[in-house]
């Protein structure tokens, strides 16, 4: 249906000879299938070419290219970075919806908010809207596939089931707690640490730049939780106090938007023990602020969160994420925000862009 609409539009344009097109606004408050998300990414890059780049950083089991949006002002220097991934678990549709919303918000804010302008000067945002593309596509297949969680790689030879839980596959106390060695289980941790191509993509990309990352946010649903490392009850992050303080600040920010309570704590405290999560792996790499967001709701609709809740969920989650990101930025660039903002407004006044400077 979409392609026939597109075709009619092209025909109309060539007849009318119009130079400009009234483009259909992307609906951030509906769930989108993978092809629409991919097209959206291209469109965002076209709309903001000086701050957005698409980076291909891996392949899924079914050979799809995993892409992220790198958003930030090019300064020609090595920059600090923020990582956000969504859709590691296929059925958690609100997560990719949030990544798309987040991108839209920071780009909007970039136009007029000196604070965001400063953050984009000092940092790059790496946002992966759908990490587990194969799984996500599978959940769109028909009504019976909607609740798929894992990726789509085949199990070991004797296994009649497929899929590995990507969030148990990372090299962080792999295969110890909160996992299953049964390949049919929804928490099957894989044949070995980072056996899965999707986990490998993140491990390689983030791992090769780990000193740059200030913050690693991985977005899931449901449960209304902000989880801090580690998933293993016997290990405590050395900056646990800081993680809790910033997490509680984020939960306050979330609550101030629509009154929703998000519980903050380690996974073994507030949810369950687990190992091999991307959050734990990121923290072990030395990325100081690593959080798992579990978005709405509390079990009423669960994974099938109604579309009329996309907007409020995204608004509150944005508030929470921004709190963490701002903290990470200010801690690293204390004093710099004012300088960067002043410099930026000066440059704008003179009508100079960063590309001209290069």
């Amino acid at each position, binding site marked *: 249906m979409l392609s026939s609409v597109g075709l009619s539009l092209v025909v109309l344009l060539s007849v009318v000879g119009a130079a400009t097109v009234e483009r259909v606004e992307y609906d951030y408050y509906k769930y989108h299938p993978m092809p629409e998300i991919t097209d959206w990414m291209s469109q965002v890059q076209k709309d903001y070419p000086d701050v957005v780049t698409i980076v291909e950083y891996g392949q899924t089991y079914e050979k799809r290219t995993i892409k992220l949006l790198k958003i930030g002002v090019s300064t020609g220097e090595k920059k600090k970075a923020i990582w956000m991934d969504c859709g590691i678990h296929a059925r958690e549709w609100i997560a990719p919806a949030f990544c798309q919303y987040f991108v839209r918000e920071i780009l909007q804010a970039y136009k007029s908010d000196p604070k965001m302008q400063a953050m984009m000067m000092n940092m790059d945002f790496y946002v992966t809207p759908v990490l587990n593309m194969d799984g996500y596509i599978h959940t769109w297949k028909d009504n019976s596939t909607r609740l798929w969680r894992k990726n789509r790689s085949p199990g070991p030879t004797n296994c009649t*089931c497929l899929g590995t839980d990507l969030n148990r596959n990372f090299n962080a106390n792999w295969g110890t707690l909160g996992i299953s060695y049964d390949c049919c289980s929804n928490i099957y941790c894989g044949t070995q640490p980072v056996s899965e191509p999707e986990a490998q993509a993140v491990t390689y990309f983030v791992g090769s730049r780990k000193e740059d990352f200030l913050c690693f946010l991985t977005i899931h649903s449901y449960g209304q939780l902000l989880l801090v490392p580690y998933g293993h009850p016997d290990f405590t992050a050395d900056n646990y106090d800081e993680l809790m303080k910033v997490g509680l600040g984020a939960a306050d920010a979330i609550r101030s938007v629509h009154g929703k309570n998000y519980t903050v704590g380690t996974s073994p405290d*507030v949810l369950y023990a687990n190992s091999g999560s991307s959050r734990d792996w990121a923290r072990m790499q030395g990325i100081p602020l690593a959080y798992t967001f579990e978005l709405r709701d509390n079990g009423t609709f669960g994974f099938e969160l109604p579309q009329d809740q996309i907007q409020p969920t995204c608004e509150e989650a944005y508030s929470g994420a921004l709190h963490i990101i701002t903290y990470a930025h200010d801690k690293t660039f204390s004093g710099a925000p004012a300088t960067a903002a002043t410099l930026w407004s000066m440059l704008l006044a003179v009508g100079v862009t960063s590309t001209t400077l290069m």
Partner: protein
Amino acid sequence: MATGELNPNHYQAQRAAKVVQHYLNTRYGSPYRLLGLHKVHSGNAEDVADSGRKYQLEISVQETLSNTTEKCSAEVLFPRGEQQSSPQVQALCEAHLKINTTAQEEALYQRYKMNQSLLSAQYIPDSYGHIDPDMKPFWHLCIVASSFIMLNESSENTLYNMAQVANITQLATENDQLKFDCHILLHDMVSQEIIHWKLLFTWSPQEGVKVLQMEQLPHCHDCEKPPNIN
């Protein structure tokens, strides 16, 4: 095992409180009344020699349609023993959950009692979280019926929610009770599994929900279609 005073936000108190939610729905739930766990205020756990583990909880529950919240005191005993046996719950709520839904229930009952074509629907909510307004009461009914299963199946190592109604089929009215066959999908947060159950139950405003049969359905992991009901 955490004993004594519990952190109300931690999983032990939260899982026990969820069991209370299921219990309250089996007692008070209807097409127009559904209870959700709102908050755990405090919790306490202790081992009861040879019996199991007992939780005492102060919680708030929220009635999902009227949005009213009320406090409840509850006790949950998770039995220890070789057989897997259901938790035992006692709960006392302030207002005894007396939100008046009689008129709506009666109207629904009369409408479907006389219905020539029996109700049949699939996948509630749908993939987008949408529920037809006409189907909402039946979604609630299936949640209430599934609460009997969730209550039975709960332990300290589970956290159940009903993920979806795969199929609901109305059967011929029997003894003035509306009768339904419901294929439901439960989600257990701890194992992250989706468990399929088939339920046969009756309902009327006077009698409430009565489960006649429940059967866990094996789910074939690499199959694409759910098993046939009829």
